[in-house]
């Protein structure tokens, strides 16, 4: 049965309601889970940065080959060289965290710039930008990355720069479309008539208030994508190289032992990939709903 209730007989100001009454439960769960994952990733990143780990992730221990999870001292067990899987998982975050942020910031800043110019100015420059974004879009991302790897070296930062650039068209198109949509409703015109500076209109009224949800979802999706790309390239052997740990090469090296019954060396990083990407995507989804539905209430 669906229940509709009013918290008190006085009409409360919506903005003063506690946040759990303001938004849908499912969105709060998404965001909560997403934030938890982000916090875990951040924490692990810091732990890895200062090397505060239970074990040295590269230390080989020949006495403890393929120790199952929950062995004393080795919470998630060890891999085929006796290296601690938990430490390697935590260290694996180093492989994508900063490069992923780099990729996101390249696609967001490039996308915002091109999108605003195309959407707000229009005309010839918009046509040029559209051609550029179409050009970038039409090139398969993986092929481009493999080209870069072949031409330079298999470095994760090179890969992420390419990923950032190939992410520009999506952001630019989304922003330009949003601005075009906003221009139909004439509040931009009204803002000009009110005497607001163009800078204020673009930064405050368009980007901050009307595009922030879009930018957040692009950023979180971008992070998820960066993780996926890094792990798959490392899995294929193009990204982070052994013995340096990465979730991708952990899955790859563990996979050889999977059918022998030693499932944990590859399952642990695989689950980490799954839950992390899920977390970033759900965070974007939930935040999008929470930030977007203000105008409906």
């Amino acid at each position: 049965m669906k229940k509709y209730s009013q918290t008190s007989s006085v009409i409360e100001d919506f903005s003063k309601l506690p946040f759990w009454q303001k938004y849908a439960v499912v969105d709060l769960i998404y965001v909560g889970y997403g934030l938890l994952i982000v916090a875990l990733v951040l924490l692990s990143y810091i732990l890895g940065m200062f090397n505060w780990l239970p074990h040295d992730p590269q230390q080989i221990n020949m006495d403890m080959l393929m120790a199952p999870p929950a062995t004393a001292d080795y919470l998630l067990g060890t891999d085929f060289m006796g290296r601690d899987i938990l430490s390697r998982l935590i260290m694996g975050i180093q492989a994508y965290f900063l490069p992923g942020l780099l990729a996101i910031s390249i696609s967001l800043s490039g996308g915002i710039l091109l999108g605003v110019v195309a959407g707000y100015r229009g005309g010839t420059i918009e046509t040029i930008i559209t051609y550029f974004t179409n050009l970038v879009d039409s090139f398969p991302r993986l092929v481009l990355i493999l080209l870069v790897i072949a031409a330079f070296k298999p470095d994760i930062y090179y890969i992420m720069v390419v990923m950032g650039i190939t992410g520009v068209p999506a952001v630019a198109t989304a922003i330009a479309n949003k601005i075009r949509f906003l221009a139909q409703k004439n509040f931009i015109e009204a803002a000009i008539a009110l005497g607001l500076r163009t800078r204020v209109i673009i930064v405050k009224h368009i980007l901050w208030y009307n595009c922030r949800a879009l930018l957040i979802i692009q950023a979180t999706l971008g992070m998820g994508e960066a993780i996926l790309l890094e792990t798959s390239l490392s899995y294929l052997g193009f990204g982070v190289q052994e013995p340096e740990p990465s979730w991708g090469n952990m899955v790859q090296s563990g996979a050889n032992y999977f059918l022998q019954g030693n499932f944990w060396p590859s399952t642990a990083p695989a689950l980490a990939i799954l839950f992390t990407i899920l977390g970033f995507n759900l965070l974007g989804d939930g935040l999008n709903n929470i930030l977007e539905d203000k105008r409906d209430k």
Partner: protein
Amino acid sequence: MNQPLLKIENLRTYFYSRSKHSFVRAVDGVSLEVGQRETVGVVGESGSGKSITAMSVMGLISTGPGVIGGSIHFASARVQKNLLEGLHKCVKVEEQDGRVMAVSKDERGWQKTAERLMRDLRGKEIAMIFQNPRASLNPYITVGEQITEAVRLHTANKSVREARERAVYWLERVKIDSPRLRFNSYPSALSGGMCQRAMIAMALSSEPSLLIADEPTTGLDATIQSKIVDLMEELKSETGISTLLISHDISVISRLSDRVAVMYGGAVVEYGPAQRVLDMGAATKHPYTAALLASVPSAQQIRDKANLQAIEGDVLDTINVPPGCRFYARCNQVTPAVREKCATHQPELQEVAPGHQMRCWRYAVPA
């Protein structure tokens, strides 16, 4: 006589139709005056150039070629200037037989000049309210914050707290119930009428000299329309603000205006005191105004279930403006004596009575 607050002279705003390779003469030589503490109503069918006139004043025309000629003098206590000053440097118009054949325009230069000229006027000296009020408010910012922003931008109340108080005061002034509660509402939570009230509050919060109301009641339902008109009438008498009121609704115009300009096909065809222009029985009456007035259904007509009196024919094609009178094709008052002139020569706006001008050969004073 006092200097008028706003004096538009021979304003021309053209657009270009790419498919037809010709100019759309949206506003073609409009001259208007808004005096101090005066409301001038501009009335006409859709496509007669009313809104484009208002937007030209505000410098909001962004598609080319846009404003190509004329002058707009603005003279308030604080600012006196021609809003189209320096325009002639950016626009070169080639004319042939009194028709514009080509326009070359330095868009960047024009944009820059316009920005510079309008910078301290927009919102502060000239405020504008639009039709479709909900679309004119930012959907993601509470109305209170939007008004606060306008207050902080244009008045001496720079601190947030002061500006908020001022915003609440204006919300109260435009008769929004429980203004403190509505302050935190998003535009979507307000009805169309309330949004328009908020827009009016925002426009008036900077205490401008001139308010341009572009179809302020369009898109609202009839009872709300009349309430908005009541509000505007009240604010007008309280603040004495000059208003350029644009509407196709004659009842709105007649309730608020001191003077009325009737526009047809981008030109003013009749301009004079409201009582005279909107008086059905006046002896001198432009045929278009007469037809417009006749098309308003009266209560008697509705009781009789009589047919509505539409104006025959279509709105003037502003691309192919005929050489004669703009209204000639639809005019039902052409007399044989003037027929030839009507078809071939454009009548001038001539005074038929003190302060009452008309563009019609029937009332033309023989030169």
